[in-house]
């Protein structure tokens, strides 16, 4: 057998066995019933064997005893007859003598043939030694028995198979004893007692024991099944209830019946469910309160801010009419209000994520369009910094199911960051799609990131260089929000960077929100990265699925 056919054969065996095996592993009642059957077969078998042995020996012992008594009596009678017939010269011919003895003994057997007789002459061979049998053939007497009788010269017995003249056979008992026939010498007289009756009784008993045993095993299996069902059904019910509960049906409970262990299980289960429900409800309540609070704070802060904003705008518009100090104040007020506003907006956005209140509003969008839009929006900044932004997109549609507002925000953030940290060197924005995922890489060639910094960039209020903090804009929350936005899609946002070799930020989104995604269509470490620079990358992160994803 070649390896291939062997493995194919094993495959077939495995599939054939697979289903019952699985059933075996998964069903407690099957295992209990099977175990019960195995053990009850063993026990019933053992009992049956013992029982049969007892009955067998009992039956045979009785028969043997009565047979030996009969044979002894018969032999004594025969010897007596023979001795009486020994009248010297008037002794009848051996043949006649033997016939008469057999006849007398046979009469004792009665008509149904309680036994048969075999009269054999003992060796050595002599002249006139007539031998007689009644109905059985002389081959019914086993040679060992004859040897024993001849050797010991006393009564001996053994089991044998009686062969009748008509060719039938029957199990039987052979009892032999030496007798002396006057005029010729030693003979052996064998009694053959058929055991047909006993055999029939034994057969019946055997059949009965087998039948009863089988019945017993089946009934035990049935009982085991019923008993396990009593235990397993509530357990299965508990499993089903737990499944429903974990699927969100928090009001699901088990029915408590009686006061037994299973009722205790149901009671404990229900207690656990109630506790969980209370906890979950409390947490939900807490989350709602938090959301509510954020929403209220938002409103309460925004209304006065709007008034301030409008007033500041009005002052800013007419700053030329003011003296220089007041005019500059109006400018500062305006600028810092912008900063304050974006900070407030970012804080509210972050707290919305923290409260789990962020909802994905996903629609199919072409990522290329969003990239173009983000680059376009950053064009004034790029111009100011003298940065060339190169966009490399494929000709094919890069459709993803995404929340355009959020992805747009992420892309703008990445592009603006790249321009701000790119030190005037070109920024490359690459889009690619493959295998259920679409990726955008934003690569700058600025100062880059130090080892270990690529995971820090997503931290709230983290800045690469504290000294630069005040010169560059931004709230310090942009990348944190971007990461949360991407997580909400079930996507990845990763950073790569090397000192002096710039940084690369890669956004990977699954085609379908929360769709499977094994790897990104673009490498995180750019191909133009220096060969010996130490690079730092972050591990891909898959957010646990959140509820409340709306399509």
């Amino acid at each position: 057998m070649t390896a291939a056919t062997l493995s194919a054969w094993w495959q077939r065996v495995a599939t054939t066995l697979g289903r019952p095996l699985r059933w075996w592993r998964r069903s407690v009642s099957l295992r209990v019933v099977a175990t019960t059957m195995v053990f009850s077969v063993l026990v019933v078998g053992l009992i049956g064997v013992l029982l049969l042995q007892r009955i067998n020996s009992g039956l045979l012992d009785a028969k043997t005893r009565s047979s030996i008594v009969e044979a002894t009596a018969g032999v004594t009678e025969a010897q007596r007859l023979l001795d009486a017939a020994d009248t010297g010269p008037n002794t009848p011919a051996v043949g006649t003598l033997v016939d008469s003895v057999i006849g007398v003994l046979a009469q004792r057997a009665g008509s149904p043939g309680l036994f048969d007789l075999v009269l054999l002459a003992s060796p050595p061979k002599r002249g006139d030694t007539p031998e007689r049998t009644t109905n059985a053939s002389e081959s019914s007497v086993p040679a060992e028995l004859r040897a024993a009788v001849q050797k010991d010269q006393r009564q001996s017995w053994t089991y044998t198979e009686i062969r009748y003249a008509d060719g039938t056979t029957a199990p039987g008992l052979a009892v032999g004893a030496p007798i002396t026939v006057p005029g010729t010498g030693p003979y052996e007289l064998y009694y053959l007692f058929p055991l047909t009756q006993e055999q029939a009784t034994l057969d019946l008993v055997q059949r009965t024991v087998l039948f009863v045993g089988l019945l017993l095993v089946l009934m035990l299996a049935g009982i085991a099944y019923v008993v396990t069902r009593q235990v397993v059904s509530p357990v299965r019910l508990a499993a089903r209830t737990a499944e429903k509960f974990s699927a969100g049906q928090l009001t699901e409970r088990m029915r408590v019946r009686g006061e037994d262990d299973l009722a205790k299980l149901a009671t404990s289960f229900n207690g656990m469910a109630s506790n969980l429900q209370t906890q979950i409800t409390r947490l939900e309540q807490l989350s709602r309160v938090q959301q509510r609070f954020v929403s209220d704070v938002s409103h309460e802060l925004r209304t006065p801010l709007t008034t301030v904003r409008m007033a500041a705008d009005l002052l800013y518009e007419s700053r030329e009419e003011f003296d220089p100090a007041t005019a500059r104040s109006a400018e500062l007020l305006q600028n810092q209000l912008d900063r304050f506003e974006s900070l407030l907006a970012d804080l509210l956005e972050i707290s919305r994520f923290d409260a789990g209140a962020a909802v994905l509003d996903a629609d199919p969008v072409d990522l290329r369009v969003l990239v173009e839009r983000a680059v376009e929006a950053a064009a004034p900044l790029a111009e100011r910094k003298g940065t060339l932004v190169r966009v490399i997109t494929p000709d094919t549609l890069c459709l993803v199911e995404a929340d355009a507002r959020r992805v747009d925000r992420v892309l703008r953030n990445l592009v603006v960051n790249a321009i701000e940290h790119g030190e005037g060197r070109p920024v490359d924005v690459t889009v690619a799609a493959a295998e259920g995922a679409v990726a955008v890489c934003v690569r700058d060639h600025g100062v880059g990131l130090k080892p270990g910094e690529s995971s820090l960039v997503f931290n709230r209020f983290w800045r690469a260089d504290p000294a630069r903090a005040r010169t560059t804009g931004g709230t310090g929350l942009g990348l944190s929000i971007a990461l949360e936005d991407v997580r909400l899609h079930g996507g990845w946002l990763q950073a790569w960077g090397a000192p002096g070799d710039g940084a690369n930020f890669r956004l990977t989104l699954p085609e379908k929100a929360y769709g499977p995604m094994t790897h990104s269509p673009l490498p995180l470490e750019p191909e133009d990265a220096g060969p010996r620079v130490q690079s730092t990358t972050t591990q891909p992160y898959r957010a646990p699925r959140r509820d409340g994803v709306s399509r």
Partner: protein
Amino acid sequence: MSDAKGRVLVVDDDLALAEMLGIVLRAEGFEPLFCSDGAKALTAFRESKPDLVLLDLMLPGRDGIDVCRSIRAESGVPIVMLTAKTDTVDIVLGLESGADDYVVKPFKPKELVARVRTRLRSTAPVGQENLTIGDLAIDVAGHSVKRDGVAISLTPLEFDLLAALARKPWQVFTREILLQEVWGYRHAADTRLVNVHVQRLRSKIEHDPELPQIVVTVRGVGYKAGPS
């Protein structure tokens, strides 16, 4: 700028903001009217008959959404809502209750004025123009839509939206283009505006809003006029 550009009813409980809005609106040539209580907003609206309503969504007395609904029930006057909430549900709820557009606090005066202007501009007639879309006849100058001679009442915004689609029945309008043409946004804005108003429009003009025949969705792109 010509004078008497329009009367704007400002419904806001925050007096400072209302006053500031008044200053800005007056500077732009509008005539501001004020109401600080949601419960009195409808009465104020009936008495003053403004050309546009600036409505704060969070009001004491009566919820802004509620006020919006009542005004919309009796008039097609443009409503621009002021909201501090940026959650989708809140904004969509506001739009569904009848607001034509919204401004999120904090906003810049220019932003607000631009929104107000666009909503007041749309009524300018451009001479006789008759369009058909589906089994509807549109008289642009007369600002009326009729099916088999029976007039269908649309708000000015819904009318503009329908007219925009009817003018170029061969073109598929992306939500961005509609935002530009109907709402006057020059930069990409919130496409939910389009979605909600298309729904509202459909509920008025379609035989079966579930299976629209007149304003047809082009999946992944936008909307277009259905075949006549």
